[in-house]
């Protein structure tokens, strides 16, 4: 999984898709996840970073993470490759 080419994410959480012209805002944790995706970390690595940093349990985090990825995918902000789907 990776961020689509040229998708811009600002430090304060504004995402701009230059192909569609759409803008979205995400909270600081969203920015953190997007940064980890940009670094090409897989789901396990991302979950590990977040579990260490925030007081939450694995099941809740997995659900929230899956929702977030679904939304990113729905808006064509990320590319998910089947063979490396994580």
């Amino acid at each position, binding site marked *: 999984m990776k961020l689509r080419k*040229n998708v811009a994410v600002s430090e304060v959480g504004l995402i*701009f898709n*230059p*192909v*569609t*012209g*759409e803008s979205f805002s995400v909270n600081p944790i969203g920015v953190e996840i997007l940064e980890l995706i940009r670094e090409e970390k897989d789901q396990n690595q991302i979950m590990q970073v977040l579990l260490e940093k925030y007081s939450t349990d694995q099941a809740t985090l997995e659900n929230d993470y899956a929702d977030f990825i679904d939304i990113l995918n729905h808006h064509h902000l990320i590319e998910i490759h089947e063979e490396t789907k994580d």
Partner: protein
Amino acid sequence: MKKRKINIGVTGLNAIDSPGPGVSVIRALREAVSFDVRIIGLSYESLEPGIYMHDLVDRTYSIPYPAGGADLLMARLEYIHEKEKLDVIIPNFDAELYPLIKLEPKLKALGIHMFLPTLTQFEERQKVNLNDFGKKYNISVPKSKVIYDLNTVHSLPSEFSFPMIVKGKFYDASIAYSIEQVKTFFNKISAKWGLPIIIQEFIHGAEFNVTGLGDGNGNTIAAVPMRKQYITDKGKAWGGISISDEKMLDMTRKFLRNTKWRGGFELELMKNKDGELYLLEINPRLPAWIYLSVGVGQNIPEALVNMAMGETVTPFVTYDVGKMFIRYAWDMIVDREEFEQISMYGEL
């Protein structure tokens, strides 16, 4: 080095809620790096705001409506030319293109240059011809049907599903969700703009526009795609952002290559949820948001003037993505004498 000065006549000074492109075109021309300008406004109504923008427009002359015929227009332009020595005219309304295309050789003989589509290009892209245009140039367009008679409306549901778009031949479009609404819009639009009425398939999706410039030989001189971000109740973009959609640019290049379009244009596009692009309309002139093209690094009005003057223009290849335009309304204070001057004497 002193730049040459070009006298340019510009129409479309109606910077209102459904704005003409004139004021934006003039702002672009004032920022041209290859020439200086004297701007001659050409107006139809005394309350067109551009007439009173003296920092943009040096002098304005009223001109007759296109419906008055080409001869009347020619006589007025000859008078204006005598006084102002016009080098170029940039028309900014669809309706004035027809007489001006006809007058192009006569105006050229006087030394007035334009850079307009040919009559065939102008006619082919008319809304009533969109189906044929799509077939001829292999460009996806929404299915449409031209109707002249209210009685034929009842057969539409066998060909189109609701909602469907009811369009006037020049302006206006409404979304109809029932036969009753189709009838209402048919009557309303035909009363204002005449027949025929165009019924068009409704494409669900996001609206985009591309403005640009074709050299008349199939080459793209400029192209800037934009997503409408803020749309008025008249469907006009009040805010937009430049984007980098390769599919859109490909469609634009294909349009220019296949039609050999000459002059400025605006493509109105719709992208459905599957990412398929449909060409809804081709406006045969620069759009009101043309100043965004200057903001992103392609001064299209400047390039158009240089092409009209017969110069070779290097095609633009890049532009800034993610630049926005946000339109605003501005109240000017105008002395009654100025209004009187343009109303009574047709000059200001």
